């Protein structure tokens, strides 16, 4: 059974870019082991929220707690998968995946190697371990970046548009991998996406972000059901989420107009 205690708590968090409050007194709690899809218009502050949760930036006011500890700097146990992946050109797939583990543990060379190969195998990129990023396909790069993020076994995984830059076929296989890893490790997951199908496929709870960082939650009963993408209910759920988004946007417009 899933532990539904709030694992992450945001209490009255505000963050401004100059005069504009991108996030305004946001209070939010995220439960342990749940996957959250964060959707909303471009420039609404989704990536800013992710950066706050990762500890890259600090809120102007309010506090963030992860596992009851106040977040003041990036945590080792928070994984971040970047939209642009951020693979270093000088690291082979093997070195890239090894790096986070090598940084934080004093494990023997052999055990380090076996850990890396475990992940290479898990993500089906064993043959690529000696290749540099420029020698990898888009999907392989994505898998390397994912393995690099997961090797430290994070308890909280943040992803910024994890499948934006890849083709449709690769996208589905990466999404299946992410879902399989989430189910296996029970990681709390929050990912930003513009793809409603991705949100419905990967998100147990869909969070719609509005102006000022207001968030509406939509539970997704289809989450985790095998082959759900092949059902009509899945597409009906996508249509429902789209309707919700449109409604929220209309609310934003009314609110802005009345101001």
């Amino acid at each position, binding site marked *: 059974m899933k532990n539904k205690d709030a694992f992450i708590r945001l209490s009255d968090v505000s963050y401004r870019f100059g005069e504009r409050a991108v996030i305004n007194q946001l209070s939010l709690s995220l439960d342990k082991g749940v996957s959250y899809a964060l959707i909303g218009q471009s420039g609404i502050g989704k990536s800013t929220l992710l950066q706050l949760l*990762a500890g*890259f930036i600090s809120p102007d006011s309010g506090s963030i707690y992860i596992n009851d500890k106040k977040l003041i700097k*990036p945590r080792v146990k928070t994984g971040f998968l*970047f939209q*642009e992946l951020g693979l*270093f050109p000088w690291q082979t797939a093997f070195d890239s995946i090894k*790096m986070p583990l090598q940084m*934080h543990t004093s494990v023997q060379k052999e055990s380090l190697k076996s850990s890396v190969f475990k992940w290479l195998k898990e993500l089906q990129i064993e043959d690529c371990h000696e290749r540099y990023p420029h020698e990898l396909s888009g999907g392989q790069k994505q898998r390397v970046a994912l393995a690099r*993020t997961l090797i430290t076994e994070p308890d909280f995984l943040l992803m910024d548009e994890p499948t934006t830059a890849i083709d449709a076929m690769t996208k589905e296989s990466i999404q299946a991998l992410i879902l399989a890893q989430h189910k296996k490790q029970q990681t709390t997951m929050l990912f930003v996406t513009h793809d409603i199908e991705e949100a419905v496929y990967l998100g147990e709870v869909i969070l719609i972000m509005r102006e000022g960082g207001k968030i509406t939650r939509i539970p997704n009963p289809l989450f985790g059901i095998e082959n759900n993408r092949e059902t009509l209910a899945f597409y009906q759920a996508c249509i429902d989420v789209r309707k919700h988004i449109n409604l929220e946007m209309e609310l934003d417009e009314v609110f802005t107009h009345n101001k």
Partner: protein
Amino acid sequence: MKYLRTISNNQLFIGFLTTLLAWQVIYFLIDTHTIPAPMETLIYLYTMKLPVLLHVLASMSRVLVAVGIALIIGVPIGIFAGINHLFNQFFSPFLYYIYPIPKVAFLPVLMLLYGLGNQSKVILIIFIIVFQIILSVRDGVRQIPSSYFTVMDSFASSTLSKYRYLIIPAISPHIFSGLRISIGISLATLFFAENYATTYGIGYYILSAWTKMDYIEMFSGIVALSFLGILMFKAIDLLEAKTTPWNKKPF
């Protein structure tokens, strides 16, 4: 055909042949005793190979010591200037003032401070190349995308890890570029550095032949100097290929 293909793939050999050809053409066109025939010079160099080798080794040692010390001084300063905006704001204008000054002009001062021996020669070379290394490294650090630093932050990396996994590998190609330029400048500087208080060094060998008006000897020294340059550039190429294999370049 196989040999022709091997030769055409060897750019160093092509470069050598082209230089000899150009030299031969100039030799025919100008027809003066100050320009000896290439073959005659090469034969002279071959017969004098041992004494010339000693001169080359003396120069090479000076250049290697100077380059090594310039790297030890220049790399940390360059990294700091690249990372620390405040330091760079003060340091860069100073660098731009110093960089274009012909440092050879300071030779009398260096001779007074460090004597006539090897010390002043090596310090002169360091003084000339260290700024090049600082600039290359500083620019290398500044070219690292800020997103790479965010990636390191996402792993809650220590400062030491940032240097180990990000900064040092990212600036390595820039260090090699700086080294190539520095070695070229160092070899050119040998003429000034080795024209006093020494009897060994390829700069001394060329200048001494010049004063004796022995042009075959002078040109043999120039050829030896170019061989030394090629040797050092190739060594850097090999070192670069070994340490930065992701950054493959032709030749």
